């Protein structure tokens, strides 16, 4: 859509104003990491995060455990509504890429009404990465360390402020609402943004190359071709079936409904993990994926085969969260590297 420029002080003043009118989620620096958390209106201006936060947008838009309502006299209203408009700052390219998967998975056909509501009332402000984590591999799965579409607003730091790009009617409306603070983006500033982007992308690619990760372009064919590889079982040996990879993943969206209460019957929607033994088990006890390695393989199959085929985008955004979270140190980059070696 359109591009603008906003000076740093103006942006900070705007964020302060926002934190009074909407629920604000912003990155908070913690060591080398950022935590994406609710920011109160008395907190200092949030830092400009150099790369993605520990938490993905999933936890904000699609609650880990959510009461979807009661039935048979259990009170119908879903709750808690957690109401009001929200603004999320600090989303990165990989976060935005994940939204395409979540929007399809939870929003297509008959949408999950609670996800749809959260999505509708949340303004997503993303920004370019200025650096990357060791585990980052967005460029291997078709991503870039800066968002190109799918955000409401995107910020790119340049000398003295930010180039702001609008990516949706909501983003446009936002700029229109505070139009005094924004100026048109000059060609020089746009050029500076593009140069910074190109420089970081090159640096990230070099990082992949040094680590020997060159599998990106063939990932889909890879998983289809190597279905019978022994690598799956070897890697799965270190899996303890904790589901952390699913829970930290920005695109994993599988959930399980569970029923509670003896008089007031309530139903909860809970994040689920396809690594759990019972995930695909049917009433009679049979399961299509009784072995752990089959479930590990299934996760790759969903990300690299199902998502491209059905949604048209990669189910893996290369954020590296699963690499950091796995206590068995199963590293998706390594798994893919090993698989690509076995024809």
């Amino acid at each position: 859509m359109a591009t603008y420029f906003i000076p740093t002080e103006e942006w900070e003043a705007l964020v302060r104003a926002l934190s009074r009118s909407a629920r604000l989620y912003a990155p908070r620096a913690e060591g080398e990491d950022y935590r994406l958390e609710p920011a109160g209106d008395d907190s200092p201006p949030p830092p400009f995060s150099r790369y993605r936060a520990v938490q993905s947008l999933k936890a904000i838009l699609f609650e880990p455990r959510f009461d979807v309502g009661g039935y048979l006299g259990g009170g119908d209203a879903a709750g808690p509504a957690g109401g009001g408009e929200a603004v999320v700052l600090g989303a990165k390219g990989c976060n935005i890429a994940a939204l395409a998967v979540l929007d399809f998975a939870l929003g297509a056909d008959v949408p999950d009404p609670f996800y749809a509501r959260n999505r509708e009332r949340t303004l997503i402000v993303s920004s370019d990465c200025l650096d990357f984590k060791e585990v980052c591999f967005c460029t291997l799965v078709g991503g870039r360390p800066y968002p190109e579409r799918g955000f409401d607003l995107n910020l790119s730091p340049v000398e003295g402020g930010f180039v702001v790009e609008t990516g949706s009617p909501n983003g446009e409306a936002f700029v229109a609402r505070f139009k005094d603070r924004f100026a048109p983006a000059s060609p020089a500033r746009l050029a500076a943004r593009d140069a910074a982007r190109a420089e970081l992308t090159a640096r990230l690619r070099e990082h992949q190359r040094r680590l020997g990760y060159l599998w990106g372009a063939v990932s889909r064919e890879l998983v289809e071709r190597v279905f019978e590889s022994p690598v799956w079982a070897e890697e799965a040996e270190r899996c303890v079936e904790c589901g952390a990879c699913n829970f930290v993943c920005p695109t994993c969206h599988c959930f399980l409904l569970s029923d509670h209460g003896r008089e007031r019957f309530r139903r909860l929607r809970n994040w689920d993990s396809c690594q759990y033994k019972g995930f695909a088990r049917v009433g009679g006890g049979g399961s299509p994926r009784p072995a752990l390695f089959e479930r590990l393989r299934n996760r790759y199959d969903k990300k690299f085969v199902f998502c491209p085929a059905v949604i048209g985008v990669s189910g893996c955004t290369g954020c590296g969260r699963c690499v950091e979270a796995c206590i068995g140190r199963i590293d998706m980059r390594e798994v893919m590297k090993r698989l690509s070696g076995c024809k």
Partner: protein
Amino acid sequence: MNNPYLPVGATIREVVEESPTIRSFVLLPDEPVPFLTGQFLALTVPGVGEAPFTPSSSQYVTDRLELTVMRVGTVTEALHAMRPGDRVGVRGPFGTGYPLDAFRGRGVLVVGGGVGLAPLRSLLLTLRHDIERYRKVALRYGARTPADIIYRREVEEWRRDGRIDVAITVDRGDGEWTGRVGLVTTILQDTGIDPRDSVAVVCGPPVMMKFATFKLLDIGFPPAAIHLSMEKNMSCGFGKCGHCRLGTVYVCRDGPVLTYERVKDFREIWE
């Protein structure tokens, strides 16, 4: 907000013992739950949870629902303990149902195994409703033992009135059984249904589905004419929770009845 996660209430009116482990439940929903034959419902046992079932009643009967349920897990166990007057919930219908329009003017070979006759009963009742639309309808049903045959009296009636050509076989007979003994795959030939211009509909335990499909292909049914009821773990029922994924389809949304053509290249279809 229209909340697709919550069931409507229903009262159990009648419980029918079909076999030692199978019961049918006649439900009176608080509001009508219209469905197309082959679509399924999520049945809630309050406070316990949900399980998916395809109604066994005709799609033309709208004031009550009949579900036939085998006792296999937590939800079905709790359901089997329920009595007339008890309250349950139903959510749905979900899925696409049998493509009846595509069946018109053709022969329909219905192949069932065990409790798999439940959804097929709904189909057969619906087909019988205007049987003249189809060239010929035949049922080939296999059960483990004579005691495992469900809807026995009704199936007998169907056989007598001749609108459907019925044949039954059991894996193992008992003292009184005078009928056929053998797997259902042994009675799929010579049904008077021309496989080149007919459809086959299969529902039963996975192994039976697998071998019945291979037999039907053998006889000459094209993969696109073989309609399979896929059983997968399900939670949401409308393509959100991811539990029922099979290759690139969600069985709840795209099925639960899928042609062999559609699934044949996926792995895990018979598990």
